[in-house]
């Protein structure tokens, strides 16, 4: 039995614009188990990203509680949340968001320095990790604008992983990539998960969703159903079929 690492109870997020209130998340209750590869799916506007950001402490929920390893984080101040994020969370964004004026290595080191003070050790670790995601020494001192989208996203993944977070949050990491690059990035994410880190990913791409062992389907701010797929096996047609049927039943 896997341990619950992240837990949300009766989570609600409301955006109010004057007197008009828009409830994006409604009384969501979910458990994320350690080591799970969770994918959140749903049509656009269903609250996928909002859920991801609320769970990760990037945004505060309007109502409800989020607990990380038994510690309630929903009441944290902005600075406490930042400290929580730097220790336990890694982020990968669709828009990649690398700092354009820093070299690849610096982009990673700047995050590594949040936890460790040993710049050299971080650099060694970063180089090692870059190598693992298939980026060689020649790109260390390149600037993000000199990289392809897939390479940049892999750098971003390394940046997210540099502090060895328990959970990696990814918001459509393959959304802006072509299919070859997307597969590369997904392979990296799968490896990350296989190494024991939990991954929570938002996507609306079925190929991406196939990697997950748990799929949550969100509609109108509510998880209407979930599918447990088991550990990812490459080129498993049955898996794809099950997933497609599930999504079709959800009105995908």
């Amino acid at each position, binding site marked *: 039995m896997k341990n619950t690492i992240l837990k949300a109870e*009766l989570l*609600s997020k*409301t955006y109010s614009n004057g007197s008009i*209130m828009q*409830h994006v*998340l*409604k*009384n*969501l*209750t979910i458990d994320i188990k350690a080591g799970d590869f969770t994918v959140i799916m749903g049509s656009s506007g269903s609250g996928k990203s909002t859920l991801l950001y609320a769970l990760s402490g990037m945004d505060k929920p*309007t*109502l*409800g*509680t989020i607990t990380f390893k038994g510690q309630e984080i929903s009441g944290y101040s902005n600075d406490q949340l930042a400290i929580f994020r730097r220790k336990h969370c890694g982020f990968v964004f669709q828009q990649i968001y690398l700092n354009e004026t820093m070299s690849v290595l610096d982009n990673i080191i700047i995050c590594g320095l949040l936890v460790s003070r040993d710049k050299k050790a971080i650099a060694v670790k970063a180089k090692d990790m870059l190598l693992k995601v298939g980026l060689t020494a020649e790109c260390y001192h390149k600037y993000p604008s000199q990289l392809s989208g897939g390479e940049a996203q892999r750098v971003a993944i390394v940046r997210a992983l540099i502090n060895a977070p328990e959970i990696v949050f990814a918001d459509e990491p393959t959304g802006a990539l072509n299919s070859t690059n997307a597969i590369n990035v997904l392979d990296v994410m799968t490896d990350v998960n296989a190494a024991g880190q939990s991954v929570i990913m938002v996507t609306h791409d079925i190929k991406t969703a196939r990697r997950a062992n748990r799929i949550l389907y969100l509609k*109108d*701010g*509510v998880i*209407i159903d979930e599918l447990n797929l088991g550990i990812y096996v490459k080129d498993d047609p049955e898996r794809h079929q099950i997933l497609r049927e599930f999504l079709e039943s959800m009105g995908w």
Partner: protein
Amino acid sequence: MKIKGLIIGFTAVLLAIYGLGFAYISQTGLGAIDVIQVNNTVKTIEKQLTAESEGLARTGAMDGLSYNLVFETDENYNAAVFEAIKNRQTMVDLTVPGLSDGAASRGKVLFVNPENEIKEKLLALLTLLVLGILALVYVTLGMVYVWVLRPFAVMQQFAGKIADGDLEFRLPMDRGNYFGAFTESFDLMREELKKARQGEYLANISKKELVAELSHDIKTPVATIKAICELLQAKLGQTITTQTSAGNTAIKESIEKIAVINTRADTIDALISNLFQATLEELEMLKVTVSEQPSTIITRMFGDINHYGKIRFQNAIPECLIRCDPLRLSQVIDNVISNSCKYADTFIDVRFCIDQSEKFLAITIRDYGPGFETDEGPLLCEKFFRGSGETIQNTPGSGLGLYLARQFMEAMAGRLDCHNNNGFVAELHIKLAGTPKQHC
């Protein structure tokens, strides 16, 4: 309170005007004569005196100062000097240089007080003061308009609205209103009218309900009639084949008559159904609009009616999103709490609880009063039902509170349960938001 501010403001402005006037007088020196001019004039005269000695004009003006000359040799010298003193005139010794120091006084220069100037300055000051006070008066009148006359206009509008039957129009009660109490009584009047209207409305509703019930009651005998008719038709139809022709005709006639009765009963049934339907639709007027709301609004609802501090919260309300009509929900809470207040008058304990599996937020409201008669339990939420206990009978009430509460709760896909447990216990079950639609 507002009056105080007005008085203080008025005083302050008057004081400011006074201060300005005071400063003006002391600064322009209404009475003071320009010493430098006086000195210059005297010196000039002295020079002329040395040069011409005789034949000097006795009066003159210089630098805007008028003067008279008197010499010690004049016959009426002392008279002129004393006259000048009487008139508070400025006078300066005329000394002639050349003669030995000190006692060279030859006479005096008497300066005519520059009355015109004083007059001008006084006029200016007066104008200033009058303008200031005028401004003050206008400002005050403006305030009176804003605070007194305009509320009247508002009240007029209000009266018009009431005359038009718009009882929802609240009289705006701002802090600056002098007629706070006055307008409040007007508002009370409106409330009373509204209540009367409400009563009328409820009476109307109960009439409608009576109709609905009657129609329902009528439907049963009509259905019996129809059933009997059909039975008779069937039975008589069977006898036709076995009987003689003469008997057959009589039976056939009977069957025709029964058919007529049956069709007429059908007509009555249709009519009653229509009537029932129409009344039911009219009853729909107590509309419930369900929306998704944060549970925290419930705390506020309890707060609004917790006039005597009798309500004790056993735990904090769990934060979640509920599906409710805030207005109706507050009416439900209001009804339940006011029942407890009326009939039990003990502390009221409130406990919140989330039922995750059923997707309910349960609110348990309990008092420690006598509760209700056990056998009356099922009737509690019936309309017009009032308990048989002595206290209940002696307390005025309509018997509609819990009925409406249940109606509302059910309209919000929730539930209202009542039972006795050391007192009266009401359980509100409010649906959580985000429950998939098909589960509702």
